[in-house]
């Protein structure tokens, strides 16, 4: 019995040998570069001692987590991280898709290429610089936007200090900076669509909007879904640099998210391994989101991650 099953296995392996051979280097890569050092995760449960190293430092169990959950502002930060990320997802996620679809419908190819190149440019300017521009732009006394509002007789708005404006500002500025860049992947998906489908539709007399609805969008649906799932896996991440440049003592109530929190308590406060604790916590939440969304995709008969 054992012999036949191993024989079967061997036959299967032999039949698929090229596929397994192709897969092998990648798997080895992940084992070496990701799994070998993964023991470092245990630092979140230890009182790290530099002389003893990670393995020999003393276990402190969930002490770091108890401290983290015990901080009175923990739940505010949790809510801020989740809510901001959710807004970015709902508003920011569809934007590159729409951009790609629109770009795809441009008939003038030169114009299309130029537009496409321009909208990807802001991705290369760091948040530090973008933040500087925004601060100048939004200043209550000297900023162009408020000068404009004043000329209309509207009271000037202190955008960066007003809690109501912080979240819209983050969402809009990240759309501004990165949606052109993010649209590249959708453009690639659209470019991969079999052009015969379009030809058939043209013969059937479908309008451009109809073709968009019935061919383009369904064809890139699986790409959209997988990107959505991956994005949900990062639901607790808001991007340190962006938040850091737009954050200030006056909007801290809404702008403090886990990344800046770990920085403040872990690095400025000198609490070693707090960063690891926060990182592990946000990772677990992210993983749960990913698993659930992947499951939902599967139930809807869509292609998930696996």
């Amino acid at each position, binding site marked *: 019995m054992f012999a036949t099953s191993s024989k079967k296995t061997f036959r299967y392996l032999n039949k698929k040998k*090229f*596929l*397994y051979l*192709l*897969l092998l*280097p*990648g*798997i080895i*890569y*992940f084992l*070496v*570069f990701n*799994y070998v*050092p*993964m023991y*470092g*995760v245990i*630092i979140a449960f230890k009182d790290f001692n530099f002389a003893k190293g990670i393995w020999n430092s003393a276990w402190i169990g969930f002490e770091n987590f108890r401290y983290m959950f015990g901080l009175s502002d923990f739940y505010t930060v949790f809510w801020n991280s989740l809510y901001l990320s959710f807004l970015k997802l709902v508003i920011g996620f569809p934007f590159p898709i729409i*951009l790609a679809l*629109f770009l795809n419908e441009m*008939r003038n*190819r030169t*114009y299309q290429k130029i*537009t*496409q190149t321009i909208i990807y*440019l*802001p991705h*290369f*300017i*760091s948040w*530090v*610089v973008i933040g500087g*521009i925004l601060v100048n*732009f939004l200043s209550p006394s000297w900023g162009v936007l408020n000068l404009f509002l004043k000329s209309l007789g509207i009271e000037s708005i202190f955008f960066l200090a007003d809690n109501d404006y912080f979240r819209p500002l983050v969402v809009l500025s990240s759309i*501004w*900076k990165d949606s052109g860049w993010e649209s*590249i992947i959708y*453009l*690639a*998906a659209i*470019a*991969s*669509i*079999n*052009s015969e489908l*379009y*030809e058939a539709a*043209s013969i059937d007399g479908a*309008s*451009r*909007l109809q073709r968009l609805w019935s061919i383009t969008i369904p064809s890139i649906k*699986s*790409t959209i879904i*997988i990107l959505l799932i*991956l994005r949900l896996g990062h639901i607790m991440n808001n991007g340190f640099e962006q938040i850091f440049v737009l954050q200030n003592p006056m909007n801290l109530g809404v702008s403090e998210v886990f990344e800046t929190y770990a920085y403040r308590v872990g690095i400025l406060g000198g609490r070693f391994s707090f960063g*690891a604790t926060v990182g592990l916590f946000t990772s*677990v939440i992210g993983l749960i989101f*990913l698993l659930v969304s992947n499951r939902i995709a599967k139930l809807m008969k869509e292609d998930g*991650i*696996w």
Partner: protein
Amino acid sequence: MNIRSSGDKLFDIINYACLTLFAIACLFPFFYVAAFSVTPYNEYLANPLKLIPNKLEFSAYTQIFKMDQLWIGYRNTIIITVLGVCINIFLMIITAYPLSKRDLKGRGFALVLITFTMFFNGGLIPNFYLIKSLDLYNTLWSLVLPNALGAYNLLLMKNFIGNIPPSLEESASIDGANELRILFRIIVPLSKPAIATFVIFHAVTQWNTFFNAIIYTSKRDLWPLMLIVRDMVVDSGGVAKDVMDAGTSGVTEFTIKMAIIIFSTLPIILVYPFMQKYFMKGILVGSIKG
């Protein structure tokens, strides 16, 4: 016929108008940096949002060109970008292809294994030990190999390959071609848009590499460009740094910062226009016929 084309026309007008407006908004930050890299600083002070300088001044660039460390950084960055992209794309293709086979035994396990790496990593110290024990410390390889294959892009690549109609493969396998042949004769040519995308993604990642160089090298001759640029552009120090900065006056000036951003990003920005033709294929056929 007539109604349809007028509807199309309206669509066109809206489409062009929206994208043009968005493009103008997107041009702003880059143009801002470029403009102030050639504007005398007192003009910036007079109006920090005025984008057309009265006088062009290129002295920031001439000063940058004299910084040896930047040229060393350029050389290293080009090496790790070219090398990194080659290895990354090759590894991605050969790994993503078997993973796209739904009936392959062990596929699910491999995908879980890979997905997990997006969430858990050992942190700086274990990674540092790993690089040392692989003898990669203080080599440019340490800036190439640790990010040679990433779960995120790999899963996307797998998705792209999975979308290729199985019928195309089947006809080849009936002809007796093995998987290797199918991969390189059929899958790779059909995946050009995806490959182009990941070339851009990874080239930009490699170009922007800086943190690994801090941890995995101890010599300044191995530093990539962005490490130096970042250190010069970000002011993150406290009062102590403020005091100290006075000692190295002139080098952290606003104009030099702007010039250095342009100097260090221009080459990588130029990668995209060269890749654009791979995003056009479908559109090309469609528009000619339509």
